[in-house]
């Protein structure tokens, strides 16, 4: 069974928020839209976004780590947002495992947003329905798009290629390989939600210096010695030998 998902590589995410607004612009004018904004030019602007980036600090100076952390619906294999929905608007597709909201059935009761431990669900204050990442289901099957562009908008936009897209149930897919090779992990596995999106952790590259690398026969300083020296004064063995 196919399970489409995103991999977020925290090793290269620089927190630029390209994924945040490219998702917004794609989806607000698409079948998942519109995505409204309240107080767009006033105090405390707030709007519907499917993907948000938060930045965390870990540890204490000078050993602080800064982590940029994008998060959108993780398209769980056991999505808690589905069974709680009173109208059946919240559903998971058999075809590819994408979790969606049927806006025509949704009554905006928000039960799903209480059930989701990841905060992936938002109500759109003006359309009065619950909204979330659709994994750009309207792009990935669209044959009018070039094949290379049949991907979520966020994946295409990401300048560091920190977002990868594929089938985590296909052992040969790029995403599955990355999860295996790089220790890809799920968020809050203790909730039993089996999120399909995985995160790749940080990897640090170090250089080891060997002491003898600092002392070399080909040291350029050797070339700064004059090639010939003046004769020395005083007694030398050569002058004083008896044979």
């Amino acid at each position, binding site marked *: 069974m196919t399970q489409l998902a995103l991999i977020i590589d925290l*090793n*290269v995410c*620089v*927190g*630029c*928020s*390209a994924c*945040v*607004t*490219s998702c*917004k*612009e794609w989806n607000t*004018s*698409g*079948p*998942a*839209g*519109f*995505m*409204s*904004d309240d*107080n*767009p*030019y*006033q*105090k*405390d*602007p707030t709007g519907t976004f499917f993907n948000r980036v938060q*930045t965390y*600090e870990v540890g*204490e*100076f*000078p050993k*602080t780590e*800064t982590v940029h952390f994008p998060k959108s619906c993780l398209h769980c294999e056991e999505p808690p947002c589905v069974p709680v929905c009173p109208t059946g608007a919240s*559903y998971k597709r*058999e075809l590819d495992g994408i979790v969606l909201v*049927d*806006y*025509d*059935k949704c009554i905006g009761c928000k039960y799903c947003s209480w059930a989701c431990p990841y905060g992936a669900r938002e109500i759109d204050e*003006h*359309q009065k329905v619950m909204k979330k990442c659709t994994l750009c*289901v*309207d792009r990935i099957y669209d044959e009018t798009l070039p094949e290379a*562009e049949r991907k979520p908008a966020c994946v*295409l*936009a990401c*300048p560091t*290629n920190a977002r990868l897209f594929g089938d985590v149930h296909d052992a040969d897919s790029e995403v599955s390989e990355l999860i295996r090779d790089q220790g890809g992990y799920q968020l809050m596995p203790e909730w039993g939600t089996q999120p399909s999106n995985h995160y790749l952790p*940080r990897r640090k*590259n*170090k250089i080891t210096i060997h002491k003898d*690398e*600092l002392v070399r026969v080909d*040291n*350029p300083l050797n*070339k*700064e010695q004059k*090639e010939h020296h003046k004769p020395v004064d005083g007694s030398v063995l050569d002058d004083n030998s008896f044979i």
Partner: protein
Amino acid sequence: MTSSVIHDATKQPAGSIETKNTTCYMCACRCGIRVTLRDNEVRYIQGNPEHPLNKGVICAKGASGIMKQYSPARLTKPLKRKEGAMRGDSEFEEISWDEAFDIMEERLAHIRATDPKKFTLLTGRDQMQALTGMWSKNYGTPNYSAHGGLCSVNMAAGMIYSIGGSFWEFGGPDLERAKLLVMIGTAEDHHSNPLKMELSKFKRNGGRLISVNPVRSGYSAIADEWIPIKPGTDNALFLAITRELIETGLYDREFLKDYSNSGQLVNCDESSEHHGMFVRMDINDPEEGCFDHQNQMWWDRHTNKAVRTHTEGADPFLMGEFTMPDGTPVKPSFQLLKESVEEYTAEWAEDVTGIPADTIRRLAHEMGIVARDEKIELPIAWTDTWGREHQSVTGNPVAFHAMRGLAAHSNGFQTIRGLSVLMSILGTIDRPGGFRHKAPFPRPIPPCPKTPTGPEGVKPNTPLGGMPLGFPASPEDLFLDEKNGPVRLDKGFSWEFPLSAHGLMQNAITNAWRGDPYKIDTMLIFMANMAWNSSMNTTGVRDMLRDKDENGEYKIPFLIVADAFHSETVAFADLVLPDTTYLERHDTISMLDRPISEYDGPVDSVRIPVVPPKGECKPFQDVLIELGSRLKLPAFTNADGSRKFKNYPEFVTNFETEPGSGIGFLAGWRGKGGEKFMKGEPNPKQWEMYEKNNCVFQYHLPVSFQYMRNWNQGYLTWAQEHRLTRYDEPINIHIYSEILQKFRLAAQGKRPGRQPPDHLRARVEEHFNPLPFYSETLEGQLTDTQKYPLNALTQRPMAMYHSWDSQNAWLRQIHAHNYMHVHPSLGDKHGFKDGDWIYVESMHGKVRCLARFSEAVEPGTIWTWNAVGKAKGAWNLSDDANESQQGFLLNHLIAEELPKNECGDHISNSDPVTGQAAWYDVRVRVYKAEDDADHSLPQFESMKVLPGMSTRRKWLGYFSGKFDKKGSK
């Protein structure tokens, strides 16, 4: 549970679709974008997958272009300040463009006919310096500044005067092959998307990223090692590393000897007027018009005597002291470098920078060992300028990247000289895995443009007798009046800032207000928020713009502001010219300005209109063409006096730097049929050809021309043939800068010719050190650092560019207000908590703002995002918007002039070499604010909405095709 679906999540809404490729302008990166319209509104902006710069990616700003295009902050009508209204009160009436042009034509014609320097043109972060600079030159005013002096001219000048190129769009790190990248003083940057793409691949390939920065944000988050450093002390680090590399022999001798002036012998006779200059051979028949006669001398190791530089078979000593046949004591440049860094031990640097001495030494070892032992050998044959054929190109895979954290200090020029020397002794210039130039660089040291040298260069009704901005090579190139003072309003190219290659926009208003060096009449400000974040001493500058003399006239009589949006500066205009957005116009990203070249060859690009202009917006370029034509400036006028160009696109197609030169704004598809590039006759179909080609022209240099270009005969000849440069001679790296020494000798009174006024001698002598040296910042030296112990900085966030994006409904949901980020120890010390209101105070002023604790900042530094804070009502935001009520501007704490000191009463707060604005030198203290504090300070009178602006909606539901019909009240 699955449902029987009614709502179809895959079906695209109906509508007529149109797609066009153009170039983004949400920042100065200039990514290629593909814009999809649905029912004539913008539906989607994506990175153009076929564009060489960004290859399909796009950042947060680029992806939010829709909200820029449809922002209620747009100006749509020309406006004139109402009769009797006070400047700054936003009392405007609509006028026609005809009237606006008549007003400007009359005023500017009068100025041009009487005293052209009374007109000053200041442009901000536009990308039109090719046009605005050329226009100003034609008009005949010396008072043209683009943003560089305000921004990072130190980065340009410090490196250009050393290696003939610099970072950003002039060159950069070759991350495809580097193994170690050291990134210093870099937050977001305007070559941002390509850097992001390359950084990711670099890290995934096992590259090691070290970030040197007082703050760990943005890119530094993914660094393998973060090295916190005290602001303004980076040169201490570079010089200590250089010292360690020399002491351990980890420098690339083979590279330095041939490709730099390291072996060249310097006159060490203090009594000589040539002290500190290279000794040179007399040459018979010196080549006429030669840039570098290459008649400096080496001391040959094999024959133990002085020979001409680069003599075949000779090998210079880089160290030692020698005596020339005529008795002159000499030392090689490298020996002088070694001596000058002797005092810069790692222990000394630890005290200055806060970085442990062992770390400094380890960094030096990592750099040196990777450079030496992980060499790359590319099988590319090339011929050097001395006729030697090489079978391969060597690379030492240590790369660097640096930005404003180094530049925006008064010691920034020498710091960047220090970095350039470090990069050079590691042997990484224009080599794989190191630093690589981008066309039109490398250029000669220094590049050829020069300003006029005296007041005779400014004459009524005459183009300027030189370029408006340039690169002085000696005191004779300065732009001085009869009293040895500045001709320019901003005092650029004077003894106060001799190498001010980009001008000093940050002082223009203050100088004009004070009438020092003289009063002006008209200031035209384009895309520069001078009454806000593009000024220091913002409150003072706003007062100066409003200040009147004893006759009741404004001290700066006439202000014209051209902008697309309702910025803080617009309120102060006497005449407002509404500019188009980037989706509504033609633009050129030109080789004559800052193109988007790749390492392997020149690239330039254009913008074409995707949607029609809103209201009566007119592209500023067309405004200049119209004005230039009305004023009959030579570039815009035929010999018979008739108008030469209808509009900007026609100008771009047909303009040549000189009649018949074949060099114009755009390099691609020149020649009658578009068959030539770089140089060729105007092609009437040039714009069409760009449009068909993703709006971009790219040329790939032959592989043998792509590296070692400073000394690559094939490349240099190609560059000369294609008119990038005049010369095809080698551009030897200046480890030792003889150019700086000329200025120093003048200050010491040893050099005949122009010399600085006595009160500036000591300053010029100290700072025009031919070798990089460490000094504390000027402001730091004049501050009571017991009282103001902290450094305060700003950084650019990745989701906003300058003050450009608060009118953007989506981007402001990422940054609606800024905090002052401080280490928690400051809270402990001064009794405030995370999220409390605090005062931040310098000797110049104070602000009240919200504190945010952070462990990702070195404890002696506090920082905020730049330009997120706004003035009340600006950008068509409501009066209670977070930007003005919680956000704040650090600029209020920074002065554009230093306190009185022995150099003068009103010396610019800038680098004494280049006039670079010293934004990050300011020292501050913090303390808790009142318990009932609930908004930031200072506050300003609310800016009124202007005629022609649309109303703010209370909510948006953007759906392209329905936006202007839908929406709420």
